[in-house]
């Protein structure tokens, strides 16, 4: 059962030569074979390539090398480029696309000795909250296969929760790491905008996108974040801020920390009573552990959904203009280039992607730009100011990660606005450019489904989030509960 190990357990046992990287990978591949026909976390798997990496890691270990990820199998969302592997973004339009280069995070994982394997399922172009928008079929929640795993990084959350890998990477534009992590019962972290290079991440909304870790433990998220962070000359929006030793931040003490509880989140209309009860209990636990919870206000919270879906779709309409049927991807011919573009994009994109590109085109179009796009950018300023003001008096903010637990497949797929509203607690973090983390804080009774606690931190305040999350995790035991997969 080596596939159930955490990153720190794996590296410790590899260093002691009790196990080999090849054996850990084989255990993960066995688990994929055993459960993935039911869960559909993986879109593709290149076993010979993964085995070659594991063998190379074993040689490095035998030569005395050490490293925080050396020999650890890590799976990537299918929106992060890996040289000579498929990069479909869950879309028909890129179904046969093979990446000619590595993303910066991929290169960093390689340098750290990770065994990179598997392409993980996602909502098409990271647009969605359930993975139902994948052109290749939805992933399933390991706790209840009739329910969605969340999205857009649903495959990443499922693969970690179902022990099909040791850890994974996803991307988060409006909650796409934190929401599926919450709904599947694992740890997910969206770094501060600029903390991690976006080079080689297929762009959805460039001012909001960040890559981040999915892990079984907070400590693993800290290790993985450290490995992928840092300034990159290939991404002009990455920030030249030193990368701390995130593991060193896990001191186990919350003494003196002030935690803000935004009243707008706890009074939200659609908040499930069982989710609220679990988060209230988590706040009590944090108080018991030495933190000081205080009520705060983020007055522009109610405007986040509208603001996000204007800014994100505007940016998406520009970013996805590159899929034109000429240079790469699907091509559906036409009598002239205009018809070729229309046919290719009409047949290559799924419904949600079309909806967002059309909405984004509209809010940027002449006559509507000021009323929608410019106004949304101004409200974004107000939302960011709310957070920066709150962080003058608190060290981190505590909220539910999602208003409800995992919903049923098909429940919201015909009603896009209801789907958008399910992101209500995660969107503001991306608009403000701050960091956020989600971790397990309980389960509903029947059916038993995971509940997620969200922590939000100052720009480059990941150490505080990890410290709070780790202290809470070690004092509870939610993270050791596993879904029954048979």
């Amino acid at each position, binding site marked *: 059962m080596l596939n159930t190990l955490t990153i720190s357990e794996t590296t410790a046992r590899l260093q002691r030569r009790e196990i080999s990287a090849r054996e850990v990978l084989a255990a993960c591949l066995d688990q994929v074979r055993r459960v993935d026909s039911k869960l559909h976390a993986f879109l593709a798997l290149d076993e010979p390539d993964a085995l070659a990496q594991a063998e190379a890691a074993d040689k490095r270990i035998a030569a005395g090398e050490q490293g925080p990820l050396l020999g650890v199998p890590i799976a990537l969302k299918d929106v992060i480029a890996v040289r000579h592997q498929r990069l479909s973004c869950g879309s028909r339009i890129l179904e046969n696309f093979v990446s000619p280069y590595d993303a910066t995070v991929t290169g960093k994982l390689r340098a750290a000795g990770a065994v990179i394997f598997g392409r993980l399922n996602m909502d098409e172009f990271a647009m969605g909250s359930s993975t139902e928008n994948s052109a290749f079929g939805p992933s399933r929640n390991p706790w209840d296969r009739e329910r969605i795993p969340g999205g857009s990084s649903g495959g990443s959350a499922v693969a970690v929760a179902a022990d099909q890998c040791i850890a994974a990477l996803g991307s988060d534009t409006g909650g796409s790491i934190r929401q599926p992590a919450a709904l599947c019962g694992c740890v997910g972290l969206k770094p501060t905008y600029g903390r991690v290079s976006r080079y080689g991440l297929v762009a959805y909304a460039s001012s909001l996108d960040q890559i981040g870790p999915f892990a079984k433990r907070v400590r693993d998220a800290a290790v993985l974040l450290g490995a992928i962070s840092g300034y990159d*000359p290939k991404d002009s929006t990455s920030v030249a801020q030193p990368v701390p030793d995130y593991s060193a931040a896990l001191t186990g003490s919350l003494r003196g920390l002030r935690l803000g509880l935004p009243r707008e989140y706890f009074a939200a209309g659609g908040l499930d009573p069982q989710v609220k009860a679990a988060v209230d209990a988590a706040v009590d636990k944090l108080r018991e552990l030495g933190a000081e919870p205080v009520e705060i206000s983020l007055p522009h919270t109610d405007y986040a959904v509208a603001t996000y879906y204007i800014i994100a779709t505007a940016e998406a309409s520009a970013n996805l203009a590159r899929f034109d049927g*000429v240079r*790469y*991807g699907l091509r559906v011919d036409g009598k002239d*280039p205009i018809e070729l573009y229309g046919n290719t994009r009409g047949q290559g994109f799924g*419904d949600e992607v079309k909806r967002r590109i059309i909405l984004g*085109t509209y809010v940027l179009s002449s006559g509507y730009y000021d009323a929608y796009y410019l106004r949304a950018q101004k409200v974004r300023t107000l939302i960011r100011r709310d957070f920066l003001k709150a962080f003058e008096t608190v060290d981190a903010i505590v909220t539910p990660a999602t208003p409800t637990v995992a919903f049923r497949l098909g429940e919201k797929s015909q009603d896009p*606005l209801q789907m958008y509203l399910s992101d209500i607690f995660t969107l503001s973090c991306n608009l403000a450019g701050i960091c956020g983390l989600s971790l397990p804080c309980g389960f509903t009774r029947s059916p038993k489904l995971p509940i997620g606690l969200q922590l939000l931190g100052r720009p480059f305040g990941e150490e505080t989030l990890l410290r709070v999350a780790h202290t809470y995790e070690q004092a509870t035991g939610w993270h050791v509960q596993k879904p029954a997969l048979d």
Partner: protein
Amino acid sequence: MAGAHMDVTDVAHLARIRLTPAEEQTLGRQLDQILDYMEQLKGLDVSGVEPTAHPFPLVNVMRPDEARPSLSQDEALRNAPAPANGLFMVPKIVE
């Protein structure tokens, strides 16, 4: 098809997405509903507020203008749906 807010046929054409009549119906209705929801932003006073395009204001990030290795022509064309003679093929534009 013109809804209360947008003419979806027209905007889809601007976005170079060809929709079927059934898609125009469904998307048009959904987009109108979404734009109704967006109306709430109009009630907020944003006078004197600067727009945020990026969470961290960066200006003129420059790099030296030097030749660096890049993809070979073969690699750049590997994913092209219709390459020919080292080029991308497109339908005839000029008669």
